[in-house]
């Protein structure tokens, strides 16, 4: 049998280690290029990363340096800002404009405003009530002149040219000095005074001129009990603010005027005297007073409420008397309330509700004018602004008739259109009924169409002349 020795086997077959090395070398030979390439890429990446890191550090360093520099410099200084601004605006825009000359060379002349009021009246009021209607008339022209007289006074003169059946009469509608009593007397009071001829504060609307009113005419109750044009008298009036606090204010107006307020100026009493074949005269004074309270109903002042109580009474027995000397007791009471609400968002949609009641207590001492008469009347107006320049409203009034048992009521829808601040057109229809109660005619068909055209020109007049806006 054949046996080889371990040596021979070993000599014939290489050892494990001897067998591995070549493989390793082969692998190495094969891999080395690959590995070399990989190594090269790695090196490149590393180099790139190193360079990136260097650049990052450099950038951070620069940023830190820049921040340090900026913090030392701070914001641009004022001169730098001015320089930059100058480059952004037109030349001369940074210069102040030269001072303007005072308003007008005629600054010692009064501010003159002219109000013209024309009316078309068509209907049967002439036959039903004996009124002079059914015509087109320029009802009146008012010249309003006013000017500060002194640090404590302003002068106002309102001259009216009134159409009396086609002929114009010139009357002094109002002429007075507005005085600041505190400044005049150098005392710490808030009292203001009015001295001259004026419309006293009686009710909410007596102080307004016809062209300022909510409607073309005064409400029926005012016309019947007080007069077609309200009350105008000569005397002295004082206004005293009573208190004001956080949207509330109260004031007292007191006027002492000649008795001609009710006697001799075409009042209903005058008409009664004429019917009785006599005339009224006056040798005494009348006191007219109104206390009012005003409250803003919300913080923005968009709605407010005002109450007023007025009284008119004679201060002397002979304030109103007949030619024969019969003294006529005259006492009037008036209660008024006005609510206004304005829209905050669009300036359109305001509401106005106004109500007033008048009561007259008269005693003619047997003179045959009105006897012992208690007459009263009331009215209410509701008005809504439906567009920036159009207002629609309704006036309803009930009233006794002086020296009569008759009672009247009137309803008057109307539309006011303000073409602009200085020209207004108003249309209304008035329907009036009368219950004569046996002492006068009863009728239910008195109707008239009213068209009113009102315009003003002259010095810019502020809002009191358009009270319902």
């Amino acid at each position, binding site marked *: 049998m054949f046996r080889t020795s371990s040596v021979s086997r070993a000599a014939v077959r290489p050892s494990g280690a001897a067998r591995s090395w070549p493989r390793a070398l082969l692998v190495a030979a094969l891999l080395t290029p690959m590995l070399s390439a990989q190594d090269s890429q790695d090196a490149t990446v590393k180099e790139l990363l190193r360079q990136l890191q260097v650049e990052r550090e450099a950038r951070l360093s620069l940023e830190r340096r820049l921040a340090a520099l900026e913090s030392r410099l701070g*914001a*641009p200084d*004022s001169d730098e*800002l*001015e320089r*930059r*601004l100058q480059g*952004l*605006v037109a030349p*001369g*825009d*940074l*210069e*102040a*404009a030269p*001072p*303007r000359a005072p308003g007008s060379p005629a600054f010692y002349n009064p501010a003159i405003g002219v109000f013209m009021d024309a009316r078309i009246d068509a209907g049967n009021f002439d036959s039903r009530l004996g009124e002079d209607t059914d015509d087109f008339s320029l009802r009146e022209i008012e010249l309003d002149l006013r000017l500060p007289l002194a*640090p*404590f006074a*302003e002068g106002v003169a309102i001259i009216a040219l009134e159409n009396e059946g086609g002929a114009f009469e010139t009357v002094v509608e109002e002429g007075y000095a*507005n005085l*600041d009593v*505190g*400044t005049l007397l150098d005392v710490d009071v*808030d009292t*203001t005074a009015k001295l001259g001829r004026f419309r006293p504060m009686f009710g909410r609307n007596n102080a307004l001129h016809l062209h300022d009113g909510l409607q073309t005419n005064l409400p029926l109750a005012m016309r019947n009990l007080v007069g077609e044009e309200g009350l105008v008298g000569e005397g002295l009036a004082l206004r005293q*603010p009573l208190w*004001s606090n*956080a*949207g*509330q*204010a109260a*004031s007292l107006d007191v006027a002492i005027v000649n008795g001609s307020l009710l006697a001799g100026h075409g009042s209903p009493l005058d008409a009664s005297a004429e019917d009785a074949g006599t005339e009224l005269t006056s040798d005494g004074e009348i006191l007219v007073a109104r206390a009012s309270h*005003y409250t*803003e109903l919300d913080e*923005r*002042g968009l709605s*407010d409420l005002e109450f007023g109580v007025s009284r008119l009474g004679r201060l002397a027995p002979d304030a109103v008397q007949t030619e024969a000397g019969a003294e006529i007791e005259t006492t009037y009471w008036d209660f008024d309330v006005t609510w206004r609400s304005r829209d*905050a*968002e*669009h*300036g*359109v949609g305001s509401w106005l509700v106004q109500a007033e009641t008048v009561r007259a207590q008269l005693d003619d001492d047997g003179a045959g004018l009105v006897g012992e008469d208690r007459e009263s009347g009331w009215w209410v107006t509701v008005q809504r602004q439906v*567009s*920036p*320049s159009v207002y629609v409203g309704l006036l309803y009034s009930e009233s006794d008739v002086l020296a009569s048992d008759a009672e009247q009521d009137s309803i008057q829808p109307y539309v006011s259109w303000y*073409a*602009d*601040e*200085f020209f207004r057109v108003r249309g209304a229809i008035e329907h009036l009924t009368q219950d004569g109660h046996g002492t006068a005619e009863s009728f239910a068909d008195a109707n008239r169409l009213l068209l009113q055209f009102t315009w003003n*020109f002259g010095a*810019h007049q*502020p*809002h*009191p002349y358009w009270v319902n*806006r």
Partner: protein
Amino acid sequence: MKTLVPLAAGLLAAAVLAPHAGAASDAPQPAPAAPVATLKVLASVPAYAALAREIGGPLVEVTTLCRPTQDIHGVTATPSLVERVRDADLLLYTGLDAEAWLDPLLRASGNLALLPGSAGAIALSDGVPLREVPVTVDRSQGDVHAFGNPHVWTDPLALRVMAAHVRDALSAALPDQADEIAARHAAFHKELTAALVAWLTRYAGLKGQPVVVYHRSWTYLLERFGLRQVESLEPKPRVTPTASHLAEVVEAMRREGVKAVIREPWQAPDAADFVARETGARVVELATHPEPFENGADLLAHFERTLATLAQALGVEPAPAP
């Protein structure tokens, strides 16, 4: 134990309270602070009230007559406004017949210190270069202002002139605090100038953009930033827009490529909505007055909002800040 716990609690409470009791009785009481005299400043419009607050700071108590959402032409004299006028030490107003309602308020208040021409009445438009000064004046031109367009507070550059007036008036009224007032004014002046530089740079893209306005309240702002006022919805100042005029406005908007119609909150929306609908433009509601007013209106924020709103409506991208 039962006793120890309450005892410990009591000792603890005593340890907490003792220092305060001792302090209350032993520490010297601070002298009551001297009352700070404040000047009562009355402003006709909110922009002037904001200026007074910026420059007067705690030295002034500011009220205003025209509400932020109110048309300056439509202020009604009420007893509460009369009371504000009566109480005021200083009046800041525009002048230029912008506030026609101020006269009856001043007369009713009896506050002679605030009459125009007196030291207490400051017409802030003095020194402001005016726009739209009419050559002839009559009512055929509508409710035209004889001295020029009075809406000067809409020009941020004019605020510099007005702020100087406010500084001078406050310094004259509070001479002991003149240095503080001057410092506050200097700070506001710098802040305003920086803001102007920023706005005129960032919103340079508004130049040449055509717009339509309801009323010519925006003339100063629009001219400052180079916008073109193509038309106003009012045919004449304060005359209600008419159908025939709106038709002309629509035609002009199409011709000029107007993309925005500017209306103030108190102006009826119908006319603006109509022309916008007809032309595809946007209605931009902007108030000339800053808000909120009660909290101390921030004038600069108001202008920033106004310009940003305009830019957005016109599709103008603001440039980077300088």
